[in-house]
């Protein structure tokens, strides 16, 4: 049985970080929005070249840290000051100074969870089925090659035109990547989006 396929994205491969940086700038200036750059390490200046807004991870961390520090305060206040005050050395059940270390530790703990899981959430990871993985060339994206991908869902996407644009950016290879579609979905998607092959 033949599985139906549809165009997912166009992938261009580059040899150096400099080439991919210029290519990304060109793609952005051409008005594409659903494109991405893939590199084995973060490239300096790429965020500006792609015109990305500032990362929002910091906000997630801020609110997780706030939850940690206030949660620790409330926990110790209720457990030690309200529910079962322990008299040790004649001291009050709850005091702020002796609570500082645990408030700090729980702030750090929740912030760290917020940082990792916030990053994963913003990046929509884990995701093991992205169409770029259909390309064999793409396997070098974690090793020593650099890629620009433009998704077929981009409103400006046109196989011939986009390919020509990418070919004019010193790309080593430009490749059309297709992803398999399940039979029943194939028709709906194909009909809706108009680039069903």
């Amino acid at each position, binding site marked *: 049985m033949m599985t139906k396929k549809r165009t997912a994205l166009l992938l261009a491969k580059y040899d*150096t*970080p*400099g080439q*991919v*940086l210029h290519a990304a700038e060109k793609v952005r200036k051409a008005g594409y929005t659903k494109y*991405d750059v*893939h*590199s*084995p*390490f*973060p*490239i*300096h200046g*790429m*965020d500006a070249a*792609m015109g*990305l807004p500032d*990362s929002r*991870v*910091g906000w997630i*961390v801020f609110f997780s840290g706030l939850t940690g520090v206030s949660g620790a305060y409330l*926990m*110790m206040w209720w*457990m*030690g000051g309200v*529910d*079962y005050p*322990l008299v040790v050395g004649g*001291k009050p059940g*709850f*005091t702020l100074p*002796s*609570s500082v*270390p*645990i408030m*700090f*530790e*729980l702030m*750090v*703990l929740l*912030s*760290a*969870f917020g*940082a*990792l899981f*916030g*990053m*994963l959430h913003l*990046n929509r*990871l*884990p*995701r*093991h089925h*992205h169409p770029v993985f259909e390309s064999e060339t793409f*396997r070098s*994206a*974690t*090793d*020593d090659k650099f*890629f620009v991908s433009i998704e077929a869902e981009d409103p400006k996407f046109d196989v011939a035109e986009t390919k020509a644009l990418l070919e004019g950016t010193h790309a080593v290879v430009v490749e059309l990547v297709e992803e398999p579609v399940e039979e029943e979905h194939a028709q709906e998607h194909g009909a809706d989006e108009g680039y069903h092959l």
Partner: protein
Amino acid sequence: MSANEKAPIKAIGEVYLTKEGMTFHEVSEVVCKVTENKAPRNWWIAFFIASSFTGVLGAAIGYLFWQGVGVWGNNAPVYWAWDITNFVWWIGIGHAGTLISAVLFIFRQKWRTGINRAAEAMTIFAVICALMFPGIHVGRVWFAYYMFPFPNQMALWPNFKSPLIWDLFAVSTYFTVSLLFWYSGLIPDLALLRDRAMGMLGRVGKIRRTVYGALALGWRGSNRHWQNYERMYLILAALSTPLVLSVHSVVSFDFATSVLPGWHTTIFPPYFVAGAIFSGFAMVMTLTVITRAVYGMKSVITIRHLELMNKIMLLTGSLVGYAYAMEFFIAAYSGNPYEKYVFMNRAFGPYKWAYWTMITCNVISPQLFWFKRLRTSIPVMFAVSIVINIGMWFERFVIIVTSLHRDFLPSSWGYYRPTLVDVAIYSGTLGFFFTCFLLFIRWVPMVAIAEVKGVLPEADPHAAEETHDAKLEDGAALAPGE
């Protein structure tokens, strides 16, 4: 690669962080090969020895649980002995990993990329070893959960005013954050291992694709991802920096908040932190010297990395030496006869052998690193790193046992001796630590590949343009289309 490409780096006086002219692919190869090739015979020998000691650890702990803590040498007046010594020693060793991965990251010390992965792994295993000791010291371990704010059958909450509870929170937070930091750093490298496994045949290839693929979370090197990833990494580093200082400060509070002469001093938090970094770097050195020799990592972990670590050891070793001197000065200056007695007893009493071992190992031996020739000699640094680890163990032993063994009344004086079970458990944790470390170097990339690539000269997107300009200046003819 042309000579011109290197010119700008040399012109501003920077030094290469890897072997000159290494390419991205070579970095991948050097590091990944270790996990893909068969383990060398020496690995199996080391693994056999280390896992045997892990077995000893299991047996000794089983015996301890069966019999109770009476099988240890701890008794009146020395109720804290090797268990807490080992706890503090292991935690301290862990701190260098965090220092290398977080503090040096914040200070933009790019050389950290060669050693941070292994150091972070070391942190995690060291903290596991450390956490065992308070866990098994509670006596009736099945009540260990009383330490947590968990509703137990006596409706009793932990005493949050106790530094021991602060310690529980500090160390468990430290472990969790170190693990998150380590794993998040691993994601891009696990993706590389996944992609390398794509072409592998047979069952091994399938297992590698599945395991590394699952752990890499579908990482595709997307720049939109890198942006959030880098921000997360910076935040984790910024959180770990005060965390690592807080952890060993809280560990020192276990002692400093008591009223015991020899423990009740305000110098303890910074003194413990300096000592922790000192011993941790020594352990990183021991492990790095071995692994870079065995696995041919000399192009990634260069002699420069090792020299810089030795400089840090010289600094922190001297800080520790200063703290030793200052403790004596404060004891004399305080005019408190008990305080004076404890310190005289430490240096000239029944445990003087331990005290002077500590001074020789921690204060005198790192002074060799003032000399460049010794600082860059592999045999010297290897020997000194082991000596420092021994010395730092003795430091904790001296602080704990000498302060306790002569109580205020001579009727409660004693002399602590360890038992065989003490020795078995301590050497068992060493075995456990090395077992974990050996498994780590076998299956996980031991150098942060993505980070090393990021600090290569070619990683600068303008590197090629500078070459371009340099060529023009040289008057070289440009190829058509360039």
